[in-house]
């Protein structure tokens, strides 16, 4: 699959010059974008005594794993990682199931008041969850869920935009296939599972990947919903680092690197899928 808009063969020097210029500009921006990450990693590998030298140096004679070792021993990093995984996997699974079912209901079934119910759901796309933290906290308190995984997971499942995206995708699936299944006597439920869902992998991947990233990185709500250190997710736990490590910069940067690493590693595996699924799902408005 060639998805790039390859330029015409570089027949004359002007095209070559353009390409070279484009490459140089790209490399400069990329360097600016990578520098903060590289500098953070560089600091993390230095001994504490060498982190605040002026003028700063990128090279050290004494690169060490010490800051990482100390971070592992002194912080709850593994526990946070586990909590983040529980919350992000839980939310992603529940979003995929509930949103896909709802989208199928709106796209493929008929019932009285469907239009009104769909409009009611679509209106929710406009509701900014961050603005609802006060009443939501009030509600969690009333339900006795503060300081539980449920408090972090349940509210994040209500993502009407995902229903909207999936419904749009389902609408584009030709009806012929399910007609054949229906003639064979398949129920709605079987058509949903065995015909529509398998055809919707790119859309489900896009919804799943982005739900996972947003949940994994969500800070504000988990920060409010949980104060028990044993339940903190990575973003919430790392927020306590700056004050507890004070001036130990190598250790602070080691924590930052460890905190950012899981999704970066996952990205390497999903790189191709991410762009493709956005394109297929029409997320970019095309």
């Amino acid at each position, binding site marked *: 699959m060639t998805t790039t808009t390859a330029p015409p063969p570089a027949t004359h020097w002007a095209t070559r010059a353009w390409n070279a210029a484009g490459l140089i500009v790209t490399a400069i921006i*990329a360097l600016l974008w990578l520098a903060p990450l590289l500098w953070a990693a560089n600091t993390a590998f230095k001994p504490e005594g060498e982190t605040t030298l002026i003028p700063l140096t990128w090279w050290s004679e004494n690169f060490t794993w010490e800051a990482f070792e100390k971070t592992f021993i002194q912080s709850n990093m593994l526990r946070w990682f586990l909590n983040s995984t529980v919350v992000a996997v839980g939310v992603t699974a529940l979003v995929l199931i509930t949103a896909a079912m709802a989208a199928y209901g709106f796209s493929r079934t008929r019932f009285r008041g469907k239009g009104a119910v769909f409009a009611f759901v*679509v209106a929710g796309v406009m509701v900014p969850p961050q603005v*609802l933290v006060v009443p939501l906290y009030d509600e969690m308190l009333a339900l006795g869920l503060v300081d539980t995984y449920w408090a972090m997971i349940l509210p994040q499942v*209500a993502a009407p935009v995902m229903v909207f995206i999936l419904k749009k995708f389902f609408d584009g699936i030709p009806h012929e296939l399910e007609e054949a299944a229906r003639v064979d006597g398949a129920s709605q439920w079987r058509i949903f599972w065995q015909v529509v869902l398998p055809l919707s992998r790119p859309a489900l991947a896009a919804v799943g990947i982005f739900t996972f990233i947003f949940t994994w990185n969500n800070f504000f709500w988990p920060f409010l919903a949980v104060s028990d250190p044993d339940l903190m997710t990575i973003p919430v736990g790392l927020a306590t680092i700056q004050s507890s490590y004070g001036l130990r910069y190598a250790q602070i940067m080691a924590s930052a690197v460890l905190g950012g690493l899981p999704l970066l590693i996952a990205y390497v595996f999903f790189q191709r899928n991410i762009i493709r699924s956005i394109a297929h799902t029409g997320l970019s408005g095309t």
Partner: protein
Amino acid sequence: MATITAPTPAPATTPAGRRLPPWRRVPAGLLFTLPFLVFYVAFLVWPTLSALYLSFFNESLTGTRGEWVGLANWAEMFGDSAMWASFGNTLYFTLLTTPPLVVLGLVMALLTNRAMPLRWLWRMSFFAPFLLPASVVALIWIWLFQPGFGLVNDTLTRIGLAELGWLTEPELAMVSVAIATVWWTVGFNYLLYLAALQQIPQHLYDAAAIDGAGWWQRLRSVTLPMLRRTTGLVIVLQILASLRVFDQIYLLYQGTGGPGFAARPILEHVYTTAFTNFRFGYASAISTFFFALIVAVSAVQLKLFARKGPDR
């Protein structure tokens, strides 16, 4: 409810006329939407209504309903200079971040949407920061913005410029946040543009090439017009995201609102009012007011989203 004997073929009965158990009488389509609707009503619709409701109470601590105060919270809010200051900060942040985030996202996508050496590396560099949690971004940028041994100030002194108090000067407080934010989130817009560019049919470029159109003409007459809808969407999504800013500011300035409160956004004002001063009723009034503003912007987003694109 004795409607079972309706003359029309009621969906509540099987063709044989037997009564179905209650759950079978709910239309199948509605059953499909039900699980989602439960979450939706419980955790989105209910809090929305409850924020409005709470704003009429003098609730001080959660769990105990305060007394009805009518519009007192609302009246207080409109005269609250701290609220208006944080409102202004939020608009300033939105103004600072939206143009570079949209333009840079587009430029990055245009640069890397062609065959070129090391393309995977360039794409990864632009998108990778978006994958970091806000706390990691804050830790890194606090470190970069340090005086003396911070990478940013060190670079400035090396090229002969003066050091700046990135996190200590009120005038710079929001600019620093904006820089960190552009670095952090441009990857999302970049991705949307990249996906949109790949949807542009190659034959349009071929036709333009036959007409002898150069790089600039192809950009102006094919690429940009084809990206118009995406740009509309990216701008609206960006404005919405920027208006809701909280995480990176709260973490960069550790909840202080920055030097002279110059970087306190409206959501942080809501947060402080509710969870430091424990004035839930008043915080709900501010939330609801801010909510109304965001809904107005979102209405535009929805229109862009829902519109049917040209089928290709």
